[in-house]
């Protein structure tokens, strides 16, 4: 029998605010344990939460960027459970009336566009972190660090519209691109700023109702989401074919072993007894606030890609690569503006620049060659001071040493030879060293032209002006 997977993702995004969601403590990553805490986020008796305006604005921006409806009034709710990482005994979240509903995200898989529905985006606070005892003496203890409690998050819940692991990965990537583009999150997956839960079930093809689903928690890479979902689909199909029943449960992706494992310990806790948070007023977002935020939205990746294709006449693939990250798109546009040639700028960035950056896994933001430096190099090639081929070596040297194109060319003596006399002498030597080839060329074997050009380039250590060499060769051989 053929089965169809049904997948939905819940993406947790940490918002890039300075202070926490309900108190003034810093959200900075990496501080010593419990050094960014106060009575509010420690859950002391008698304290009151006060909502961070910027966090609300960021959540609204994400709503707008996903074509969602922004609810003018939404309600915070208490999600009750006991766990040592949650000092209040409840997490402040949103439940029945979230801030954002009914949006969508378009993804591209195998050159086709697919729309994934977004059910809701709600605001909530993060929990703390548990460190487990490592030494024998500490083996029986866990250590609670509450710096992360009350850090602002949005949870983006998709419709069960995803059908393959590749679509899940593409959707996660698209969400990631957007939050980083909007500047509302640093999207750092290693530091936990961007993570997702995946709900997976399978059903026989053609069946209407969904199968029993399992949920995989805290997946923090595009690769893991694909691997975990692939594994889970296979596991469920195998279980069904063996006549077993799928148990609705939470499972954990073990990336070391490449398997999902059941987390039975958390099962009994799934009765959260949500109720409206009495310490917070309903969240009111005015039409004015929404329209101000709408005006402040930057151009998003999909729109930018379309504009790059039209404005710079780029192939869709190149436009896609260049708009995948906002700093890269900015770098490209800056170079086009300076160098005045969209195609040449794209060739350099798509070719040499990204190759070198990818080799070192470096981001465009700390690329040693800036748009001005690249423009200077492009200018030297245009002028004919160096050939395109030499230009690539010069670029690599600029990348390594941070020197300017001119400095590198001067230092290495790479200036292109455009002196007719000098080139003419080199060509004469090549021709007299290869009398047979000259004979054959004159006998009609014109494709030998390439051979003579190559030999002359070699003789000039790649510095001969190719156009001029061609011209001189034609004169000499034709005569």
């Amino acid at each position, binding site marked *: 029998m053929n089965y169809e997977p049904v997948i939905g993702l819940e993406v947790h995004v940490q918002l890039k605010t300075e*202070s926490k969601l309900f108190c*003034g403590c810093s959200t900075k990553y990496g501080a010593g344990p419990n050094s960014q805490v106060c009575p509010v986020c420690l859950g002391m008796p008698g304290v009151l939460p006060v909502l961070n305006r910027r*966090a609300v604005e960021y959540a609204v921006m994400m709503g707008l960027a996903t074509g969602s409806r922004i609810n003018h009034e939404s309600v915070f709710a208490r999600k009750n459970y006991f766990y*040592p990482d949650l000092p209040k005994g409840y997490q402040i979240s949103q439940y029945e009336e979230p801030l954002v509903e009914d949006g969508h995200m378009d993804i591209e898989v195998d050159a086709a566009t697919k729309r994934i529905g977004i059910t809701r985006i709600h605001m909530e606070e993060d929990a703390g972190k548990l460190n487990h005892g490592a030494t024998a003496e500490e083996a*029986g203890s866990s250590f609670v660090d509450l710096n992360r409690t009350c850090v602002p998050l949005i949870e983006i819940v998709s419709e069960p519209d995803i059908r393959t692991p590749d679509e899940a990965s593409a959707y996660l990537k698209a969400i990631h691109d957007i939050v980083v583009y909007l500047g509302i999150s640093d999207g750092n997956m290693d530091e936990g700023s961007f993570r997702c839960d995946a709900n997976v079930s399978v059903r026989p093809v053609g069946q209407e109702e969904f199968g029993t689903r399992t949920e995989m928690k805290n997946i923090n890479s595009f690769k893991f989401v694909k691997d975990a979902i692939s594994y889970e689909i296979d596991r469920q199909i195998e279980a069904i074919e063996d006549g077993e029943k799928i148990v609705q449960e939470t499972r954990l992706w073990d990336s070391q072993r490449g398997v999902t494992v059941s987390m039975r310990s958390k099962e009994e806790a799934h009765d959260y007894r949500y109720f409206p948070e009495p310490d917070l007023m309903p969240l009111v977002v005015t039409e004015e606030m929404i329209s101000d935020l709408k005006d402040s939205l930057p151009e998003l990746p999909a729109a930018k890609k379309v504009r790059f294709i039209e404005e710079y006449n780029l192939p869709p693939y190149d436009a896609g690569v260049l708009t995948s990250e906002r700093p890269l798109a900015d770098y490209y546009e800056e170079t086009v503006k300076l160098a005045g040639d969209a195609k040449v700028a794209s060739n350099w960035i798509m070719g040499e620049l990204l190759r070198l950056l990818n080799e070192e896994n470096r981001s465009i933001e700390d690329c040693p060659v800036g748009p001005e430096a690249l423009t200077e190099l492009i200018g030297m090639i245009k002028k004919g001071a160096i050939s395109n081929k030499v230009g690539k070596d010069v670029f690599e040297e600029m990348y390594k040493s941070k020197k300017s194109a001119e400095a590198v060319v001067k230092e290495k003596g790479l200036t292109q030879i455009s002196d007719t006399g000098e080139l003419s002498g080199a060509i004469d030597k090549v021709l007299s060293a290869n009398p047979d080839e000259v004979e054959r060329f004159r006998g009609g074997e014109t494709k030998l032209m390439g051979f003579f050009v190559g030999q002359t380039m070699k003789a000039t250590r790649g510095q001969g002006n190719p156009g001029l060499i061609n011209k001189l060769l034609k004169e000499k051989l034709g005569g």
Partner: protein
Amino acid sequence: MAITSKDVRHVAALARLSPTDEDVELYTGQLQRILAHVEKISELDTEGVEPITTTAPVSGRMREDVVIKGLMNEDALKNSPLSARDSFKVPKIIE
């Protein structure tokens, strides 16, 4: 809605409480009376009445995103029964 001793035990377990059998019997009776009272209230016709989540006037009070120094680590941990490694120390939590 009638509350049973099973409900009481479930809620107690969620709150990490372990009541005795007598406690459960006592609470079941008390909770039944409370719920009966609420049931009485719900006899009222509230058709077309907006639910109230707060009695205070709705206002959009928010704070600006500014960092305010919180507690020193030792003050944060002061009332904790057990602490070590600048952290609250609890019995090991098994994942």
